[in-house]
Every structure is written in C-alpha cells, then in structure tokens.
C-alpha cells in the first residue's frame, strides 16, 4: 500500500513524502528533495564562464577557457555524485532495525543500518539553525554501559529538512512500530518494557526531548498537545 503527500522543507521548497506500507511490521518512508533547477545550473555556468572570459581578456591565454569548461564539467559531476541528494529513505522493520538510505543525484546510495537492539527511541528534537529554530527527527541509541542512558543521537532527513507536519507523520508511524516491537520483545527486560510502554515515559539526557504520553488512546489527538515544551534548546551544527 503506497500513498504520497506533499510537504515543504524549512526553506520553502517542495518535498514529496511517499509512504509504503509493506506489512504491520515493515514501513518505508521516502522523502524526495527538490530537484536541481535549470535556472540555478545556468546561473552557475554563466558566472564561471564570465569569470574565465574576464581572466582570458587579461591574460590572453586560451588555456583558461578550456580549463573553465573542464572545471564546470567536473564540478557538475562532483556535485551530482557527492553533494546533491535526490531522496532519503527510512525503512523500519520491526525486530530488525532501522535503515536510512540517501540516494544521490548520480544514483549513488549510501546506507546506514541500526539494529533494533540499539535503538532507544525515535524523537522530534528542536534546534537553532542559523537564524531559525527548526525541528528534526532523530534516533536515540542506547548506551551499552548504562541501561537507560543515551549514547548517541542520529539525526534523520538531514538533507531534506522537512517541517514539523511531515515529521509528525513519520514520527507517529515509527512510534507505532516501536511500541509494538517493545510490547512483543523477547529480551529479558521485556516484562519491564511492556509495563512502561503503556505509561508515561520521559527522557533525560542530552538536548531537549519531547515529553509525551505513550498512551495508545491519545494517538489520534491533535499533534500540538503531544508536543511538550522543551527545557532548553540546543544548537545544531551542520557538519556538511
């Protein structure tokens, strides 16, 4: 079962969220980023060639022009292969794990798979990004030393950067599967998890988390009531 919805990202670009429902325990979200436009491509090419022509008139060396063409081609290929992400996919398989795939415009795919045993939770976090405050979805990984601690935060959809409405859709479905997985978990702490899954769960640790009710009956409520208030806001540095 497949359905597609249209959202926008933090800069206002169009995003398309495709949701594929394979089974109650397997779900896939595919978020397509805005494509590279002809206008931006033309603008970059023209500016590079104007600069090269300016240099050529100064130096009278025709190698500059061929070098400019070479640079433009290589730069475009490099951009398509290493920088421009076409779509990002999130595949959640109950009792196996969560897989994130980024597909680049040249067809290259880079995949990260996190086992379910290491996933503590999936939450929506708030961050300051340049002059904006944005929301992002992230996976919290368990700390092997401390049973209830968080060792790492893995942000999702970093290139697409969708807005909150899109994130809530993904978040709800992830929580359904995670709750189902915790309820039917066969690990020795399965007993505790079943009990705690139906109670209120709160998180401490790094950053600001959303305090939410894990009560199944509240799932259809207005999303605003499910989002609590942050204690503090952490700054989110893009390393790209």
């Amino acid at each position, binding site marked *: 079962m497949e359905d597609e919805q249209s959202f926008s990202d933090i800069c206002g670009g169009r995003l398309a969220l495709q949701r594929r429902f394979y089974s109650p325990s397997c779900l896939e979200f595919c978020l397509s980023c805005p494509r590279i436009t002809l206008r931006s491509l033309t603008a970059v090419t023209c500016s590079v060639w104007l600069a090269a022509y300016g240099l050529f008139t100064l130096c009278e060396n025709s190698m500059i022009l061929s070098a400019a063409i070479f640079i433009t081609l290589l730069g475009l290929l490099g951009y398509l292969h290493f920088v421009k992400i076409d779509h990002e996919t999130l595949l959640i398989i109950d009792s196996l794990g969560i897989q994130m795939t980024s597909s680049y415009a040249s067809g290259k795919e880079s995949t990260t*798979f996190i086992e379910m045993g*290491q996933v503590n939770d999936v939450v929506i976090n708030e961050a300051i990004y340049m002059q904006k405050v944005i929301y992002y979805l992230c996976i919290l990984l368990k700390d092997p030393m401390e049973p209830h601690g968080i060792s790492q935060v893995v942000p999702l959809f970093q290139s697409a950067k969708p807005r909150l409405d899109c994130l809530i859709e993904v978040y709800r479905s992830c929580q359904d599967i995670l709750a189902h997985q915790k309820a039917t978990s066969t690990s020795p702490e399965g007993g505790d998890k079943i009990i705690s899954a139906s109670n209120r769960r709160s998180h401490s640790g790094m950053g600001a988390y959303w305090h939410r009710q894990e009560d199944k009956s509240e799932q259809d409520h207005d999303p605003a009531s499910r989002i609590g208030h942050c204690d503090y806001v952490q700054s989110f540095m893009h390393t790209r």
Partner: protein
Amino acid sequence: MGLVFRGAAEAGLGAASAADRPGPPDAVPNPTPTPPAEGADPGSSRGPGMVLKAFFPTCCASADSGLLVGRWVPEQSSAVVLAVVHFPFIPVQVKELLAQVQQASQVGVTVLGTWCHRRQELEESLGHFLEGLGAIFSHKPWFQLCRERGSKSWSCKATHWRGPASPAASGEDQVMLIFYDQRKVLLSQLHPPMALPDRQAGDTTASAGGLAAVFDTVARSEALFQSDRFNEGPVRLSHWQSEGMEASILVELAKWAAGPVCLFLACLLSLISAASSCRVFKLWPLSFIWSKLSTCEQLRHRLEQLTLIFSTRKAKNPAQLMRKANMLVSVLLDVALGLTLLSWLHRKDLIGQLADALIPVADHVAEELQHLLQWLMGAPAGLKMNRALDQVLGRFFLYHIHLWISYIHLMSPFIERILWHVGLSACLGLTVALSILSDIIALLTFHIYCFYVYGARLYCLKIHGLSSLWRLFRGKKWNVLRQRVDSCSYDLDQLFIGTLLFTILVFLLPTTALYYLVFTLLRLLVVAVQGLIHLLVDLINSLPLYSLGLRLCRPYRLAAGVKFRVLEHETGRPLRLLMQVSIACILPCSSKGLREPG
C-alpha cells in the same frame, strides 16, 4: 515419498517416535511424548501474532524440496537456515550428521522445518507427509517454507508444535523471510572474533546480540559446509559450497609453506635485532649519530615491520591481519621499487655520472654562497650596513666556505665508491635509498646549517641584550625569582653604560638581522627539500595498499555492515527482504554501516 517413510520406520527411529504410515498426525497415537513437549522455551515470552524471522540462503532458493537445517535463536526469535537436506533421506542418518556437526562446531544445528519447491499446488499426501516429518524431527516452531517453481511467490508457515494431544492449540505465527548470501557473509567476516574453545555445544554467545548472532552461526558452521554434492555420503545437502568447495591451490600451498618460512625468517630477524641492540652501538657518539641519521631510523622501522610480519603468532582479529598484510605489501612494493631504481641506475651508469657531477655542483654552490656574502658585505637591497661588523661577519663566513670546499676536494676520490655502495642499498628498498639521499643532502649542506646556527645565535644574543637594556633604559629589571618585570633603581654609571650599549646594539641590529634572515631562508630551503623526501618515505611506509587493493577487487572483505532491501511484496504473502553486505566507503560522506554494540 511413502516408500522412504516406511523405510525410515523400518530402520528404527530410536527415541523419537513417529507415525509409521503417512496420514494426518492427529490420527496416530503417540505412546511416548515427543521431545519438544518439554514446555515453552524458558527465555521467550512470545505471544500470538508475533513475527518470526527466517534467514534463508539465496543459494537454496532454487534447490529441490527437502528439510531445512539450521539454528534457532530464541532471543531474536529468528531461525538461521544453513542448508537443505534433500529427499530421499533416512532420519537417523540426518540426526547423526547433525550431531557430528554440533560436536565439531559448537553450534546447535537442528532440523528447523520443511522446504518445498514444487510445480503446482500442494497435493494432499505431500502435505500430510511434510507434517508427518514435523513429528519425527520435532522442533518448535516448525517452519514450512514453500515456493512455486518459476515464480516469485513464496509462502511460509511457522507452527508451534504443542504436542499431538492438542493440535488445535498450535498457533501460527507470521514469518518474515530474509535472504542472505552465505558466501558473502562468511567472507566479509562480520562475525565477532572466534569464541573460546571450551564453550558448551549449542551455547549462544552472550555478547553477540542481534545480527551478530546470525553471522556467528554461519561462520561457525564450517563443518556443515564441508560436504558437497560429489560426496558419496548418506545425506545430500544443499548449501553455498554444494557445487564444490572453493579453494585455491596457490593459497593452500602458500599456507603450507608459510609455517617453516616464517620460522626461519623470524630466527634470522631476531639474530639481526639482537646484534643491533648490543652495547657497542649505545655509546655516546655513536648513539647520537644514529639518532640524527634518518637512514638508521628507517632501517629500524623496517626491521620492526618485518619482525611483526614474520612472527609465528597468528593475528588475533581481522584488523591485525589487515595491518600485517598492509605492511607486507608495502615492504614488497618498496623492494620492487628499489630494485627498479638500482637497475635504472646501473643501466645508464648514472652513478659514475653522479659522482663526476657532484664535485662541480658543490663548487658551484660554494661559489654562489660567496657571491651572496659579497653582496651582503656591500649594500644589499640598498640598505646601509655597519661597515666594520659587516666585514667581520662576511670574512668569518667566507673562511668557513673555503674550509668546506677544501674538505670536499679531499673527499673527491672516494665519492664514487661511496655512491656505488649507497646505490647497492637500494636493494633493501626505495625508502632506504631515499633516506640515504636525505642524509647525503644534510651532509653536503652542513655548512649552511653551521651558518644558520651562527647567525641565529648572534641574533638571539643581540635580542636578549636589547630587551634587557631596554628595560634598564626604562628603569626596570627582570626578577628571576618572581619571573616578572620589577622596577629597579640603577646607579648613574650603570645607566650611562647601559644606555651606551643599548645604542650600539640598536644600530648594529639591521646587519645581524639581515644575516640571520638570509641564512634562515637558506636553511629553510634545505629543510623543505629534506621534508619532501621524508614525506615520500612516509607515504611508501604507511600507504595501506592491501586495503586499497581489496577495495577494488574484493569489496565485500571490507564490509562495514549490512543493508536491507524489500523485495516484491504481494498482500497475503510473507514479507521478503534481501540482506546485503554494505561496503565501507573510503570517502567520508558515505555509509557508516552497522553499529556494533560496545
């Protein structure tokens, strides 16, 4: 199929009692309780409607019908299928084989279910026969995988066998099929390091959670994959090596020969390192010289590397093995490049030409230096220098250059012989030759180093003197006890002499500074050339060529994790996933792969 079954009954089934004629299992009375009725698995708290995972090898997807053999991991509620046993078989022999494998590999291999690869719809009798098999090889849960020949539709059922007394209580669970390539999983070495030899049979690794348990199972079941279809054994298996075991004669020969060769080389290397660490070489002048020469450094480094490579201890984990392999490949490349250089030098008789050209080059360098000093002694760049100091410094350095030239001319008859021996050292590797080149450059430009040291010392003295007298000029003093500047009252004559000296030093500053600048720049030039050579040496030493080669030729050996792909899915059919090994990419902006716990 019925024939086989009756034959099985006649052969004696031992403790496991079963129906001795095909028919619905509930119609046959079972006098003795079947083994799995020992109760629910203590570790699992499974409820109805849970999804079980079945890891199925891709090579068995086209195999004929038979029994599924593998291991059941209750914590992950997943079944790892290792091989398929084909009809006809005798259950007792299958059980014997499994017991043998279990003993040899410490993996709890059992019969997990049935596999059916058929052309059309399931016949009644076949269905009952397959269910009857469940009574012989009782396992909970019992998997029944089925595939239509030539199509992609699969069906699987997993039933809890609660005993023939209450068949209605057997619940069915949903099964998720995960295909995996046995060969890739084995060769990518994603499993945790080898377990201790005194583990109990069937013991699950406590630390290997999740998928690591699956990889561990596959990796430790080597004993099951030893028999291929050309074996005349009683049981016919299907797995990734059933077409014939993969091995390479060269690799086997190399492994066989590696033992004695390593032993011999290790003894030789230990003798050499013992000889080099004897007390004679640790006396002061020699140890100082050894520490300064980069050739000795490089030779020591190579000796350490060779000792590590040829040590008779096996590598403990894949990372160490990779490091050893990288070192070996870099040593071999080094020696190959060195021999190429040697042959090139000898072919064109470059050594003789080099030796002939060395003296004129040294003379030329000395002449250039003299010109430089003459220029400094005049009015360099239009600056007006202090005539007297200029002449003193200039003559001092000119005398040094004269000494140096005489020294070089003294050495000239021996240059060719020395160079020839140096060229021979290229047999030990290109890095050694490059280190010797760097040392020769250092020796030939020793006078520049001396000039730099003189100029730097003079400049340093001047600066210290200036700063101290400047403090005196302002009426301050450096307090050594408190490490700070304090005020101080000087006598009149101290102030007078101090001010005089300060003026003298200030006016002599440009001359000294200029000499210092010129010789520092010359020294920087020499250091830059030596630095480039050392960079090249480090590059050859530390480039992981083996890993690069693996990345190009056998990328699955550098696996960093797994990735899953959902195959075509129809409603009503089980979910099918393909598990592939994902490769660690060299570039930083790519996949990070599986994160192992801890």
